[in-house]
């Protein structure tokens, strides 16, 4: 009887997560292409030859290494920017002011917006000529008598990576804000009062009360956001298409292209496992660091 409650969920997860995961691991050791395998075919492409070629190719594939570097870049700087922004906004929303509830809802808006739409917004706003941002960079310098600044937001690799981080952060900083704000509101107000009586300033209160008490929730939010950014694809597809060249391509995007555009299922599966290994390394490494800093984190 009690197993019946778990059964449907466990069945779906076994059928749609565990089986595909193992299947994919097997495929990554084959040369299966779309439409079957050079060595076989038929049901689920069974009857293929096993080979270690895909994993050998991983070592020398320049495009893969670029995609790995990009993905780590997006995760690292995305999380950092979103955490700082999210914390500032959460501290702001923790202040008493009129219209606070309205502001909280407004701040959440980007989080609900379809990422594809956010990608288009990014493309519109970072257009080098016709966008409000380009306009800003033309006008503001001219007030000071300087030359207009031209920034190739999406067309120059070094800038495009940062632009992706900016777009992604616009959308997801609210997530950090939401959770950090809840963490802030759980801090007893008496702690602030006591610290004030003892003559502590705002900065000191932040450093010795707010920040340490926010650490556990900070660890959780950073971990969740980090894991989510590892999956990044939609914003990039629409804003830069992975370009210029493949300079902003993420691992997920490369897997997708290898499988759907090039039809090389075996290699795509092996790239996906590179991503999985990165995700596992990130999680264990981050949790290890977090435990060093906060003894209370479970």
């Amino acid at each position, binding site marked *: 009887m009690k197993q019946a409650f778990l059964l449907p969920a466990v069945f779906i997860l076994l059928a749609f997560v565990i089986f595909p995961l193992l299947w994919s691991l097997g495929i990554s050791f084959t040369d299966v292409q*779309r439409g079957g395998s050079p060595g076989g075919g038929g049901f689920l492409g069974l009857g293929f030859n096993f080979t270690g070629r895909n994993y050998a190719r991983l070592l020398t594939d320049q495009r893969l290494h670029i995609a790995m570097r990009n993905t780590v870049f997006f995760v690292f700087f995305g999380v950092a920017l979103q955490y700082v922004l999210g914390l500032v*906004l959460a501290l702001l929303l923790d202040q008493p002011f009129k219209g606070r509830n309205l502001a909280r809802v407004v701040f959440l808006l980007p989080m609900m*917006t379809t990422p594809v739409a956010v990608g288009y917004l990014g493309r519109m706003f970072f257009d080098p000529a016709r966008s409000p941002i380009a306009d800003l960079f033309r006008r503001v310098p001219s007030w000071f008598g300087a030359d207009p600044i031209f920034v190739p937001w999406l067309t120059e690799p070094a800038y495009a990576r940062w632009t992706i981080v900016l777009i992604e952060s616009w959308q997801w900083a609210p997530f950090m804000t939401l959770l950090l704000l809840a963490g802030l509101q759980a801090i007893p107000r008496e702690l602030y009062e006591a610290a004030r009586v003892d003559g502590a300033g705002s900065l000191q209160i932040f450093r010795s009360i707010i920040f340490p008490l926010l650490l556990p929730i900070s660890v959780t939010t950073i971990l969740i956001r980090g894991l989510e950014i590892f999956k990044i694809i939609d914003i990039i597809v629409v804003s830069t298409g992975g370009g210029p060249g493949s300079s902003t391509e993420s691992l*997920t995007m490369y897997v997708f292209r290898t499988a759907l555009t090039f039809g090389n299922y075996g290699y795509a599966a092996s790239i996906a496992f590179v991503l999985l290994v990165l995700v596992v390394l990130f999680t264990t490494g981050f949790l290890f660091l977090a435990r060093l800093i906060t003894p209370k984190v479970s």
Partner: protein
Amino acid sequence: MVRRTPLRTFMVYALVLFWSFIVLFPFFWLITTSFKTPLAVTRGPLYLPWVDFDPTMVHWEYLVDEQGSTILRHFRNSVIAAGGSTVLAVIFGAMAGYGLSRFKYHWKRVGWRNDGIAFWIISNRFLPPAVFVVPFLMIYTTFGMIDTHIGLILAYTMFNLPFAVWIMRDFFNGLPQDLEDSARVDGASRLQAFLRIVLPLSTPGLVAISIFSFIFSWNEFLYALMLTNFDAITLPVLIAGQNTNRGVEWWFISGLTLIAVLPVVVIGLMLERFITSGLMAGAVKG
């Protein structure tokens, strides 16, 4: 914080207004662009309707008259995929969450008890979807599930389920067991107690996981792109497709984007408090 100085108040309002502007201006831009003529878009940033440019209805007329039936079809696909997977995730998520909260399990073969099972379930949520690209393509092709509604519904259910189980387990843990016990003393079966007593009390949790599942599935792109090619295409794929088909027609895309974004934004804003409480349950106690 308690100390209120005029400077501090000023700073707070200034920052709130600044960030509200950063958040809202893109939406303002999206709306105005959908009323601009192509010339007004390509001539560079024009800001105020009736001042900088004359708004036109032609793109909306085109969207409704010419593209109306296509858009409606894809809109319907999005509703079916998101709605269907939400229903499944809520039903199975509530069941599993209840089980994990009220019974003691011990899966001897893997050595997991309740916490181990719950952790395994939530960990599925964090696997990168890229890992499933190849197997899903092959399995779906083999079983003829490419480009079907049921295919998308099942794929999204698998993504939504772990979070639903996790949140519901937490929610049920917060409900006192006594209520069910007294109902059972009065002769109700376990199932009756679950359906009549527990479920009505857990509406906030159910609403929260419904919103998460719906918004996630509505906005999802990778699987929709991979598993559909004509009949079952959802709105995000339709929008992303405008990229290559016709160059970038911002005036048209803006209108389309607004149509796609509006439902989830309205749902999200109306039910915002459930989102906060649900996320807290999922993140803090996890």
